């Protein structure tokens, strides 16, 4: 059914958006890509697995992923970005974070094996539905969408209306000017990594709950797609990452609906190539760039 597929697409897209936001936040502030971000997201799913194995209630995975993946963000900043501050160190930082991501995958595979690990969800969580406008929707999907929208709204408020957000925007525009104003630039960069990584971790928990399993290679598939969404939405553009994520989620879901199957993924990559060719500033760029 079409409406149901669109809802599926929005739910999927909201998770894409959360991961894409992390890429774009870090890119906005450092002008560098964090290639460990997909694996931070992946780790979120395994935090859910670990919490459930310890017998914790389902919701406990969220604060745990927030803390663990947020702390991982600090580690990524320390190991792969702190030393490489100059603009011409982009490749160095990218390679270093890529290697760090690969280490994370190896560590997870050492612990859980390379096959997907299923997440035990209570039957009522998996099957409960709610009728919205005549359509039966799984409650878990609505919960995921609700949390994702809440986080996105919260991020928007944080960035536009708080001191931390103002500092982030100032550093994103000019670390030099920010430092001369009295902003502790390294602290702002750390805050950015923590926020980005915590969001990715929560998205990882949500994906595991949605699909019922966590997989160690998800950073390469889902994570890289979020990277494409960042490019589609405009590098460093928060609103672009949110809208781009939802858009790509819907496009993929519709591709499934119309029997294109795996071709849905190709659509995403082709979309990215076209957007980069036609609107290098991103699909939603207005000419006056609106970055983090």
């Amino acid at each position: 059914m079409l409406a149901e597929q669109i809802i599926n697409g929005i739910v999927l897209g909201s998770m894409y958006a959360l991961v894409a936001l992390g890429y774009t936040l870090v890119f906005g502030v450092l002008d560098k890509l964090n290639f460990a971000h997909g694996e931070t997201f992946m780790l979120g799913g395994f935090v859910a697995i670990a919490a459930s194995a310890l017998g914790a209630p389902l919701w406990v995975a969220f604060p745990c992923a927030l803390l663990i993946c947020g702390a991982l963000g600090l580690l990524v900043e320390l190991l792969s970005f702190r030393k490489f501050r100059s603009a011409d160190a982009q490749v160095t930082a990218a390679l270093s974070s890529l290697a760090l991501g690969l280490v994370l995958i190896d560590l997870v595979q050492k612990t859980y094996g390379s096959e997907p690990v299923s997440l035990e969800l209570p039957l009522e969580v998996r099957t409960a539905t709610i009728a919205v406008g005549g359509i039966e929707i799984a409650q878990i999907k609505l919960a995921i969408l609700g949390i994702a929208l809440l986080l996105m709204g919260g991020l928007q408020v944080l960035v536009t209306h708080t001191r931390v957000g103002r500092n982030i925007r100032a550093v994103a525009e000019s670390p030099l000017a920010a430092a001369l104003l009295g902003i502790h630039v390294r602290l702002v960069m750390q805050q950015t990594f923590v926020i980005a990584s915590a969001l990715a971790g929560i998205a990882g928990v949500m994906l595991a709950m949605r699909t019922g399993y966590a997989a160690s290679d998800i950073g390469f598939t889902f994570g890289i797609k979020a990277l494409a969404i960042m490019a589609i939405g405009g590098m460093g553009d928060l609103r672009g990452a949110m809208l781009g994520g939802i858009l790509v989620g819907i496009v993929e879901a519709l591709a499934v609906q119309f029997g294109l199957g795996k071709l849905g993924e190709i659509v995403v990559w082709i979309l990215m190539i076209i957007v980069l060719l036609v609107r290098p500033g991103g699909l939603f760029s207005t000419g006056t760039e609106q970055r983090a």
Partner: protein
Amino acid sequence: MPEPILAVDMLEVAYGPIRALRGCSLTVSAGETVAVVGANGAGKTTLLRAISNVLPHTGGEVRFDGTTTRGRRADQLALAGLLQVPEGRGIIGRLSVAENLQLAWALRPDEGGFEAASRRVFARFPRLQERLSQRAGSMSGGEQQMLALARAIISPPRVLLVDEPSLGLSPVMVSEVFSVLKAFRESGVTILLVEQNVRQALAIADRAYVLRQGTIVAEGSGQTLLSDPAMLRYYLGSG
């Protein structure tokens, strides 16, 4: 004589093999306006960046308020009141005018509160009040420079370093910038001004230094240097 609030002693800065500052020394006392003039490439911007610790120095020392700045970050110095308006103004173009002012005030709040501080600023810069919600980057260069200066004094700095405030501005805006600096000076702000616009800089300065190829080659009162056009021509390559 009391110790100067800012003392630069034999400062050395090198970009790789290029020595941009070679033993540069100067002092600024509280309440003074000091100008450093020099031709393009003399090391003026390097000097201010080294004082603010955004550029590491390879030798010499900077003392602010009697203590060395070694080991302190640029933001710590700014919070301590050694504030720089950099070349290119350093405004945050994607933030609104109001946000730029709030940002600066929140970093160095004073007891009177933001409202009182902004009233003070608007009395001096009435045009900024009309543009509060505008993106700072969409204003003209002159207005951006005014915002940068307004932001610098929203809570009074101990020493204000100003790097080429007249750069790229129309003659009308240049004289406006200098009249603002003059007003700052008259209200007691301590200023170290770096300028290529020699005449106007010397005219508002109590004392001035001439910087050439990374060293101070002359110093004197602004008026003395102004009245010696032959010397200025020799060191600056123009009147």
